[in-house]
């Protein structure tokens, strides 16, 4: 009898494959999931046929094109699809570096799905929504403590929208000061998120990017050479996606202030800094946190995103309207913002996500948040130390400087020896039920791997992850064929990716598919 070896942590995984058609292809004319009984005469007499009262303009001229399929087949269809993807909470998500994918406590889902929350309507009277307003107000106060800022908005629906909010505030600030035309340049770094450059570019700014110096930190001399009377703002992440924290960041922000510009902090990588370093102390005028990263709420695909943008008091009036205020008795929506950039999202953003983040912060307390940061960094150091025991993987810019909560590694040695790149390794990792996200843009470091353990995996999870990666590195040398053909145990084998940058081949909806088929 074949025995399963338990001494190795490397799994003998195989993903389910159902060869499942898309739901429109399952449709069979006349097949029904629910047969709705005919209304009783008494009811029909009272409400009519249910349609004729609708204004003509709201009524469909042709029936909606939906697949016709029975209940059991619908359920089977979606269960099968759920087995054909990697799914949240199903695997060890360390490979999604830069994303801060951590376990989000399920109890907070129960709170956010409580009808007291889900039945709220943004247009109902403020006096009847005091609970959620209090949650938003208190969350604002907690983020002030964490960042040193003076006021937060929760309106942005994600990181890029937060970057856009910051760029809009910068622009409005210089407009009010009569310098909008002259100050047309924004400086950022190449290891900051691409949206930190893209959002200001959309606002019409010229973008200047700073490359790293020999230590992997933003090149100070280059930065100095870029600063001028045209500088509107500096937008930067710290730590950057390398996991390296720039200890000289105050020198950078001071240069910007001396030149009359503003400092904007992308705190997407805040998970290792909670309770340790504050944006304001580093000389920033504003910052943003992704609640779906560091603050224990699901990422976009698991629920709507939400970002918090915080500013110092002098920029409070530029924030999107409304803010949540408290007059000592009741909470209220504050629209009295003199230079407000307006709205960046309808109503008040995504309060359910704020509620999850609030529950997460309240359950931990100040000491707990500090511990989150410490354990996230500790896990990263553990991963770092054990992973680097294999000669195939190294840490660019050396191991002397400790990374904070993530690290961008390189397998350039393995690439040189075997020809395999990090993309090949990412394909093979799927054979063990794991996932490496290729979020290493720009590919400044050759054959990059960006890993971020966060505080939530156990030591067993970390060990399994490390052992699996080492196993794959060994395979690259000893059994190259298995890497070349990977993924072998996944639902889909190697695909032709050439269509990814060819819009003519894209087919985002069924309707587009039918059009293309013509």
């Amino acid at each position: 009898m074949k025995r399963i070896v338990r001494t190795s942590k490397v799994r003998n995984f195989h993903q389910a494959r159902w060869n499942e058609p898309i739901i429109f292809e399952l449709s069979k004319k006349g097949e029904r999931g629910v047969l709705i009984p005919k209304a009783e005469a008494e009811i029909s007499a009272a409400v009519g046929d249910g349609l004729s009262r609708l204004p003509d303009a709201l009524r469909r001229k042709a029936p909606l094109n939906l697949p016709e399929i029975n209940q059991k087949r619908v359920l089977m269809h979606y269960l099968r699809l759920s087995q054909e993807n990697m799914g949240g909470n199903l695997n060890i998500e360390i490979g999604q570096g830069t994303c801060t994918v951590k376990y989000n406590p399920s109890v907070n889902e129960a709170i956010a799905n409580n009808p007291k929350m889900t039945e709220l309507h943004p247009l109902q009277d403020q006096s009847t929504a005091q609970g959620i307003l209090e949650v938003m107000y208190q969350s604002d106060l907690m983020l002030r403590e964490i960042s040193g800022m003076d006021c937060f908005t929760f309106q942005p629906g994600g990181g890029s929208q937060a970057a856009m909010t910051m760029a809009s505030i910068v622009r409005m600030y210089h407009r009010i000061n009569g310098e909008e035309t002259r100050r047309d340049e924004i400086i950022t770094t190449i290891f900051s998120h691409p949206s930190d450059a893209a959002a200001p570019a959309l606002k019409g700014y010229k973008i200047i990017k700073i490359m790293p110096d020999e230590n992997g930190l933003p090149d100070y001399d280059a930065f100095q050479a870029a600063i001028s009377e045209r500088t509107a703002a500096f937008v930067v992440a710290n730590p950057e996606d390398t996991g390296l924290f720039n200890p000289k960041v105050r020198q950078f922000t001071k240069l910007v202030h001396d030149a009359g510009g503003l400092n904007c902090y992308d705190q997407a990588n805040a998970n290792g800094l909670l309770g340790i370093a504050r944006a304001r102390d580093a000389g920033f005028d504003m910052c943003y946190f992704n609640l779906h990263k560091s603050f224990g709420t699901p990422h976009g695909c698991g629920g709507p995103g939400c970002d918090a943008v915080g500013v110092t008091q002098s920029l409070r009036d530029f924030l999107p309207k409304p803010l949540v205020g408290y007059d000592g008795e009741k909470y209220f929506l504050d629209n009295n913002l003199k230079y407000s950039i307006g709205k960046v999202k309808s109503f008040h953003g995504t309060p359910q996500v704020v509620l999850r983040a609030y529950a997460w912060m309240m359950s931990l307390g100040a000491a707990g948040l500090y511990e989150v940061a410490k354990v996230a960094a500790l896990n990263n150091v553990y991963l770092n130390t054990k992973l680097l025991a294999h000669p195939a993987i190294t840490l660019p810019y050396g191991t002397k400087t400790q990374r904070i909560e993530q690290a961008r590694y390189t397998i350039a040695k393995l690439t040189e020896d075997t020809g395999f790149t990090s993309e090949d390794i990412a394909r093979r990792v799927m054979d063990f039920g794991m996932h490496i996200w290729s979020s290493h843009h720009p590919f400044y470091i050759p054959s990059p791997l960006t890993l971020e353990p966060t505080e939530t995996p156990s030591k067993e999870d970390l060990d399994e992850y490390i052992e699996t990666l080492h196993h794959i590195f060994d395979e690259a040398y000893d059994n190259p064929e298995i890497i070349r053909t990977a993924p072998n145990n996944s639902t889909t084998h190697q695909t032709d990716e050439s269509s990814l940058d060819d819009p003519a081949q894209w087919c985002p909806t069924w309707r587009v598919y039918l059009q293309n088929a013509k």
Partner: protein
Amino acid sequence: MNRIKVGLIVNPIAGMGGKVGLKGTDGVKILAEAMKRGAAPNASALVRQALEELIPLRDQLLFLTVAETMGETLCRSMGFEFQVVHRPHNVGWETTSQDTRIAASEMAKENPAVILFAGGDGTARDLYEALGQGPLVLGIPTGVKIHSPVYANTPHQAGQLARDFLAQGNLSTKLEEVIDLDEEALRQGKVYTSLYGYLRVPYKREYLQNKKAPTPLSDKEAQGAIALYLIDHMEKDIIYVIGPGTTTQAILDGLGEAGTLVGVDVVCNGELIRKDCGERELLEVVAPGKTRLVLTPTGGQGFLLGRGNQQISPEILKMVGKENIIVLATEDKLIKQYGRPLLIFTGDEKTDLALKGYYRVITGYGSSMMVPVSVG
């Protein structure tokens, strides 16, 4: 004591075409044209820079070399012990690629530790044809076109790499590509690179030239955006000297003008006023304070000046001034430098030092990157 045998083949005419606006110095006719345009041989001085690095090892080395200008003269003047393995039929300037091939074959019979060869892509091709992947070789860059990563970045670095290799003896080696352009197509403005084979070279990443890759399709859009930005911001009555490269060529495409892909063109008020200029023609149009020089680093290698644009001479650069140099490059090209600075090597140290420093390289419409430029 047995001396370590080192081959040395110098292509004495390499690089002569570049300074007078020709795309190479391959073939007798082109050489004659280069000489008519006033080209003077410079290869020997560059090879000397490389050999100076080997002076500490002088007592341990025996050079196997070729008569007169192809190596002998240099070895003699620098006090290296040498042995001539081939005497070309025509000496002086008029040696041929046939001489390079014969010399390489003769040297190989002596089992040298490494064969140093000085020239351009054409010379590398000759080496490959004679040797295949047999003996270890290393290129000293002196030619006009250098796409083949068998060459070190600079003559100095070729010398350093050879010295490290000969002194330590344990450097790794790797096969590198021999790439050359179709020279006839080049003179018509088309970059057709071909892979001719591989040569084995000693390897230390920081010393060898990157392979110059033809621009990938995805870069085309970026080049278009860069060109549009520059065109939109061109100043009236200013002379724009446009250096070679697909990125700079996009400006002429954007203006609806037929420029020279691997030559230097001149634009003023949106019109092409001079095409495919050599140094002399450029000196006629360049005016201090009224000229902008538009450059792009050559693919993969990161050379801003000194590779394929020798007609932009130190004299011209002095007149233009650092503040009037506009550098263009796609973000992808800069990122593939992996932190290495862009390089200049005009052959004039003073000019090179005056031009080094940070440049705001235009990478798209309204976007730029701060990039260090140092002396190659």
